[in-house]
Structure formats: structure tokens, C-alpha cells
């Protein structure tokens, strides 16, 4: 049984060869696409569990592909790029990527990131709330459904995990590192830009006024805190 189906999107054939050889060696099923268009046509038919996406490709670029992909799918996306500035990372995360790896990379690191992306955040029934309800926000953590001001809202798995972790610690400030490791995995912790982007996206989706958040609060120099607005989460 395969460990998961991975779509490798890269215009460089050598990189696709290396990825295929390595990933197949680690029991993953590998499919390939040479550019964004091909990736977008293959995904509905193949339903991969994860996408490894190059940014610098001919045709519609990686960012555009990422946005298209994200608009119709929750599949985890790891962007692989030769660019290494924070601006590039934030742009990719904004476009819907879950993670960003700078080329060239060591294969162990990439494999760890793939494992982290495929794994759901750990859920121990003891401290995880099942539901949360306030006047304008209803979350059912078991069915992963969210209603904001009465309207069904869709979160990506990473956004959902982030929100669930914050709610489980409601009222307490959660440090950046703890939050990153809880949602992305134990190898993470030095990527505060990830949190900035994902918290922003979450606020846009669940806050009545994202500029003045009332649920997800910033704790300067520390991290973030979930304030349930007087309502305590149902345990």
C-alpha cells in the first residue's frame, strides 16, 4: 500500500527524475506534470494527496497555479523554489501554499516536510473541543464545519488545524514556536511568516472585522490568543 500519491510539478526533467526515484523508494506513488496547466488538468482525475509545486515555470507560473488549485481543493501544497526571500515565501503562502522549501534542498528535509504535510495535526480527545458556538461563529470540530454569521465557510486543513489548536488553548497566549510545531510538525518553529499569513487568512474568514479581530488576538512578542468572546468552548 502506498504512503500517498504525490504530484510533482516542475519544468525541469532532471528534478522530476530525482523526485520520482526518491519518492518511489519511500513508498509514495508519484505522478508528474511539466507545468501549471498540466497540473491543473491532472489533479481532478488523479486526486493526489500532496502537490510539490515549482514556482518558476513557463506558462501560468507556480503562484497562479497555486491559487487556481487552492480555489477548488484542500490538497496540501509544498512550494519548491530557488527564491529565498521572505517576500517570496509570503507570496506563496498567500497564494495558498502550506509550506515552502528553498532549492536546493536536502532530501531528508523534504521528506520530513512531506510527512508533516500529509499528517493531520494530532488530535487527542482529552483537550480538543468538539464544538464552539458564539453569536456569529459556530464550529463543529468533529465534522470540520464552520458557520460564520450563519453562512457555511470553508477552511483549508492547515487553517482548520490552526484554529482548532488556538481554540483548544482558548484564553491562553500560544507562543509562535508552539503553534508552528503543533500545526506543521516538530521540525518547524522558525517560520513566523507562516503564522502571519495563515492567521491573516483565518481572520479574513472568521472575524466580523479582520482589521479589529475579536477572536484571534495578537499577543505582541509572544504569539496569538483565542478569545471566545465570553463564551467558553464546550468540552
Amino acid at each position, binding site marked *: 500500500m502506498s504512503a500517498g500519491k504525490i504530484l510533482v510539478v516542475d519544468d*525541469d526533467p532532471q528534478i522530476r527524475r530525482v*523526485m520520482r526515484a526518491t519518492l518511489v523508494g519511500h513508498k509514495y506513488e508519484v505522478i508528474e506534470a511539466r507545468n501549471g496547466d498540466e497540473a491543473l488538468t491532472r489533479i481532478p482525475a488523479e486526486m493526489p494527496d500532496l502537490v510539490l509545486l515549482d514556482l518558476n515555470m513557463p506558462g501560468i507560473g507556480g503562484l497562479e497555479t497555486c491559487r487556481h488549485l487552492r480555489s477548488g481543493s484542500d490538497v496540501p501544497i509544498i512550494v519548491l523554489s530557488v527564491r529565498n526571500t521572505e517576500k517570496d515565501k509570503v507570496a506563496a503562502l498567500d497564494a495558498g501554499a502550506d509550506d515552502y522549501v528553498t*532549492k536546493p534542498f*536536502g532530501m531528508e528535509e523534504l521528506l520530513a516536510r512531506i510527512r508533516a504535510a500529509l499528517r493531520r495535526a494530532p488530535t487527542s480527545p482529552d483537550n480538543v473541543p468538539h464544538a464552539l458556538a458564539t453569536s456569529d461563529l459556530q464550529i463543529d470540530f468533529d465534522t470540520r464545519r464552520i458557520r460564520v454569521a450563519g453562512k457555511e465557510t470553508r477552511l483549508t486543513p492547515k487553517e482548520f488545524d490552526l484554529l482548532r489548536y488556538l481554540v483548544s488553548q482558548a484564553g491562553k497566549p500560544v507562543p509562535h514556536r508552539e503553534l508552528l510545531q503543533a500545526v506543521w510538525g516538530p521540525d518547524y518553529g522558525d517560520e513566523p511568516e507562516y503564522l502571519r499569513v495563515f492567521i491573516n487568512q483565518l481572520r479574513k474568514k472568521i472575524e466580523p472585522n479582520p482589521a479589529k479581530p475579536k477572536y484571534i488576538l495578537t499577543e505582541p512578542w509572544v504569539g496569538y490568543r483565542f478569545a471566545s468572546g465570553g463564551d467558553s468552548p464546550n468540552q
Partner: protein
Amino acid sequence: MPRLSGRRALQLIGALAIVAAIVAFYHRALHVNNTTVALTLLLAILGISSWWGLAEAAVASVAAVLGFNYYFLPPIGTFEIQDPQNWVALAAFLATAVTVSQLSARAKGRTLEAEVRRRETEGLYSLSQTLLLSGSARTASQDLVSRVVKILGVNTAAFYTKSTNETFRWGPENQLVADAQLQADRDEPLIDAQKGFAIVPVRLGGQAIGNLGLAGPLPSAAVLNAVAYLVAIGVERARAMEEAGQAEAARRSEVLKSALLDALAHDFRTPLTSIKAAVTSLLGGERSPADRELMTIINEEADRLNRLVAEVLEMVRVEAGKLHLEKHPSDVTELIRATLAEFRPAILDRPLEVRLQQGLPETEVDSDFIQQVLKQLLDNAVKYSPPHSPLTISARSGEGRVIVSVADRGSGIPEAEQMRVFDKFFRGREHRFRVPGSGMGLAIAKGIVEAHGGRIWVTSEPGQGSVFSFSLPVYRGEMVS
């Protein structure tokens, strides 16, 4: 005394002929009373003065008085006048004829003058139109000179422009304005209406742009000055447009250079990605020690190539002034702590002293870049000092800046080389073949510090060690993003 022109002579004869014809007609053909004759003659004189001018009218008046007296005032056939009443009539006739001539001639003069002004204004307008449509400064200058000739009706025009020391001419070769006169600095126009020659300074806002020389029938001084002013505006405008075009071209070339750099970075890193991914994938499995050693070498060298690509790119960006700094108020203590958190594992064998002055002001820096500088200085200190020797990092404030220093106990830098360690590709003599490096690290650090408006320097005592320091601007409370 100027000689009469042929046209003038003809007009004078014509005026006399008209008077003679009227007198002869009334004397021979049609007998009417004297008043009718006198009025007819007055009418003729009025016509002559308005068509031809005052001189013709005056001559006609005198002839008319004589003819009227001789043929119509008794005793007829003589210039004598019997009746004193007729003296009065004759005098009245003469006075009327002369006054009428004068008034009419003056009106005609005004009309002519107005016509000249109208043509001049039209000329200036047409010139200003030309100015707005001309392209580059060179073609504009050439265009202007030919337009000036056409519009002002002069024979030849020349424009000398100071900025490029060029002269643009239009008109027949034999009437050229002399170079020396054209190129001399002058504050006042030189106008010689007799010879039909003028040189007018072309100035804009008190700044001399050049001179405009004209030969041929000249317009008024006011028009000459207006033309010079228009030329100044036209040339300056064309020059400004040309400069704007060059700035745009330079900008595009910069954009192209950046795109080229990005493409280059991508093209180098793509094969490196395959190599590194492949070899680390192999390293992840069970390997014999010999295989593992060889694969490790491949992996390390791929990393080294990648660092070199990064350094070259960074160097080019620093040199092109294309570092995109995102400055924020930053605590230097925090920057040092963050750098050490990353760097400390590599120097666990070194005693490390961190000396931070209390109450350091915040600095206004791009913290990523400044951490890079700190890392570079630490890296250098480690490379150029013996294993296990101590390192010191310190930060203090002074002269409105925060100064960060990294000190080692290495062999130091000979004085002759101290000035050059920040030069691109410079490697110290002693270490050139012993210590790995590209010779770009310190040059990049210098570029980054200077882009922040700071300074980087080294003090060193051979045998005692080196201290590398850099200064950073203090945050003043106004963010420049």
C-alpha cells in the same frame, strides 16, 4: 540723399497726371462751377494720399492749387487772383488738401504697422507651435533655425548651443554669421539694423543656453527677444524630454539586468537542486563508509557551489544598489541574540564573550541583512583565528549611532592589507591558500552596512587579533518604509 525709387517716381507722375486729367476735363469738356472742380480735386488728393502716401498727395495738392488758379479762378489764364474772396477759397483748398493728405497717410501707416505686427505675431505663434512638436534636442535645434528663417523672413539664421558646443545653421552660405561672434558670451543683444545683422542671447531663467544669429531684413527688437525666448524654451523642453527618455532607458536596462540575474540564478540552481536532491537521497540509505564519504563530498560541494551563486548574486545586487531594505526599528541586542542562536552550534568550542552596553537605543535596519553582516563577521573571526581561541561581540552607542564589534585573537591583519579587506575578491596573502572563501563576504557586508547609511572598519594588531566594527543608524521615530 536717398535716390527716388522707380516705383516712387511713377507714383509721383501718376499723381500729377490725375490732377492734370481732372483740370483738363473740366476746362475743355465739362463746364461746371468752381466749387465742383475744387471738390473733385480734393477727392482725388484724398485717394492719392490713402493709396500712395503723403509725398504724392502733397505734390498733387500743389499741382491742383496751381491748375485751379490758372484755369478756373479769374483772371483765367494767369496765376493772378483778383477777387480777395478767391484767395480765401484757394487757401482753404490748400489747407484742406494738405490736412486730408496727412490724416489719410497716417491712417495708412497705422494699417501697415498693424499688418507687420500681425505677421510677427503669427510668426511667433507658428514658431511656438513648432517647438511643441519637435522631438530630440538636436532635431529641435535644426528645426528651430529653419523655422526662424521662414517665419521671420530673414535670409539666414544660426543657433549656437553652449551645452554641446554645436552650431545649427540655415540659409545661403555666403551670408553666414561668424562663429566667433556667435559663440561669444553676451548679456545684451547685438542688433545692427543698417547691415541687417543681429545676435541675440538665448537665455532661460537667467541661464545662458546659447546665441541666435540672424542676417537679412530684421524684425523689431521686441520680436527678436521674443524669438530668442521661444528658442530657449523649445531647446530646453526638447533636452528635458531627451533626459527623461534616457532615464527611462536606464530604468529598463536595470529591469532587464535584474531579470537576467534572476534567470541566471534559476539556471544555476536548478541542476544544483537535482544533484543535491539525488545525493542526499542516496545518503539517506544504508551505505559503506567509503561511499558515504564520497557522497558527503558531493553534497558539500553542491552546497558550496550554491553559496557561491548566492554570493555572486548578492555582490551584483549590492553593486547595482539594488538591495531592497525593509527597515524597521530593531533592538541590536535582539539581533545579536538571534544571530548567535543560529551561529552558536558551530562555535561551541570557543569561549564567547558578549558585552552589551545598557540602554542601547533602537536602530533602524533591515534585521535580516544586518544578521547576515554579523554572521559574516563571526564567520571571518572563526576562520582567521586558532581553534578554541576566544571571540568577543560587543555593542555600544556613540555619536548618534550604535556600533557593533566582533573581535578575535587571531594572527591579525598586516596594516597594508587592512584597507583592502573590504575589497571584492581580496584575500589576505597569508591565508589565500589555506582558508576557503570567495573573497566576497566582507565586500557584501560593507555594501549592506553602507546601504543602511553606516560604516564598517577594522582595527588590527598583527599577532594580537582583529576587531571588525560597523555602525548603524539610530531609530528616530519616523519610519521610512
